């Protein structure tokens, strides 16, 4: 089967982001989506540390330690971008002004719960950052993750076993093996990579995945 690599996953997510969208790309894998957004369209990238209208990474040597994204990587500002303080930034998020957040996750449940902040391992130091704010921080919240763990367990689950980040907030899950909808109606298949069948998807996840949205 034609498993998507990380670049292909990022390109797949990017395809679903329309012109004019206000978007927050979470730390890690989701940040890569920026590389696949069409350069000729106005798509507005927000970072919760206080910037809207982020451009690409600066050329080497032109990094500004005071112009960074939430992952603390140097970024640039487009003409028309601007800066604001943390309360305004999270108001932007909490108030539903962003269109799309793309997040990584440990687990997503069929009903749209997400676990992505804490493994719950004893002794682990908890750190949440903006994860819980991002999880409810846009009109649509997408997750981008590999479908299976290294040991083959599904990260798309009936019910999250890791500590929750947010409840019922995810609408779509982009994985290396396909794209899934989640929510009040349960999980469904939007697309699967060639060679990964509906039956395999159901067996891998243990979920009764609805296939009605799957394009023929």
């Amino acid at each position: 089967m034609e498993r998507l690599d990380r670049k292909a996953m990022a390109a797949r997510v990017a395809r679903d982001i329309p012109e004019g969208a206000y978007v927050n790309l979470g730390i890690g894998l989701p940040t890569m989506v920026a590389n696949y957004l069409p350069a000729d369209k106005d798509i507005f990238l927000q970072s919760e540390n206080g910037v809207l209208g982020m451009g690409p990474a600066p050329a080497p040597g032109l990094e500004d330690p005071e112009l960074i994204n939430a992952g603390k990587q140097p970024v640039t500002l487009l003409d028309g971008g601007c800066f604001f303080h943390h309360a305004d930034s999270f108001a932007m998020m909490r108030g539903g002004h962003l269109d799309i957040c793309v997040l990584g996750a440990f687990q997503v449940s069929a009903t749209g719960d997400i676990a992505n902040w804490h493994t719950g391992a004893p002794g682990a130091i908890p750190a949440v950052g903006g994860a819980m704010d991002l999880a409810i921080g846009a009109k649509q919240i997408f997750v981008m993750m590999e479908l299976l763990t290294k040991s083959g367990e599904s990260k798309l689950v009936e019910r999250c076993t890791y500590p929750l980040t947010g409840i019922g907030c995810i609408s779509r899950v982009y994985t290396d093996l396909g794209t899934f909808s989640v929510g009040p109606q349960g999980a469904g298949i939007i697309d699967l990579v060639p060679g990964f069948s509906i039956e395999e998807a159901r067996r891998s996840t243990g979920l009764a995945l609805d296939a009605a949205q799957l394009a023929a």
Partner: protein
Amino acid sequence: MIDKSVASAQAAVADIQDGASIMIGGFGTAGMPDELIEALIARGLRDLTVISNNAGNGETGVAALMREKRVRKIICSFPRQADSHHFDALYHAGEIELELVPQGNLAARIQAAGAGLGAIFTPTGFGTQLAEGKETRNIDGRDYVLEYPIHADFALIKAQQGDRWGNLIYRKTARNFGPIMAMAAKTAIAQVAEIVPLGALDPEAVVTPGIFVQRVVPIMPASALAA
């Protein structure tokens, strides 16, 4: 290319419907979006809910909306003024509903809406008529009233400069309610004295980031037209 600029005030308010809730910026002469309000009046709508600091002065702006009986309910802090006779007449005739809100609570409730808060405990108004029937709580020795966010379908505001992404800067005390109303409305419409090219506004000095603004209408100030 995203271009939020709209050619005319008429076009900018064309989709507002009967029964809409509309925030209107302005405090006194400063920041009142007169041309947007005129265009709204021309729509001939009914049963509007207006959220604004005042209920109109004289014959223009919110007062004209009152005169034309377009408003079913107003949420404001200071309706009674020397020349608020159109509101006064409606009020005495029982033809308008008034929700009176202390000015700072009005601002805080609008800001809470824009920020996605469910409710806030504010000390203003505790123990007064305007808190009657409201939930109260003593927190760390001080008394507070629970107040809920005020959302709106539209905001009509006035700014000084805007760009095609909707970024705004204001002028002096005309800023007043503009930034928070833009955040609290589903569709924020700003009339600006000038639309400038992208990048012309200092990114450190943008007061309202474009994400909060859906339409920008250039309305040259009357003083500039006369000059």
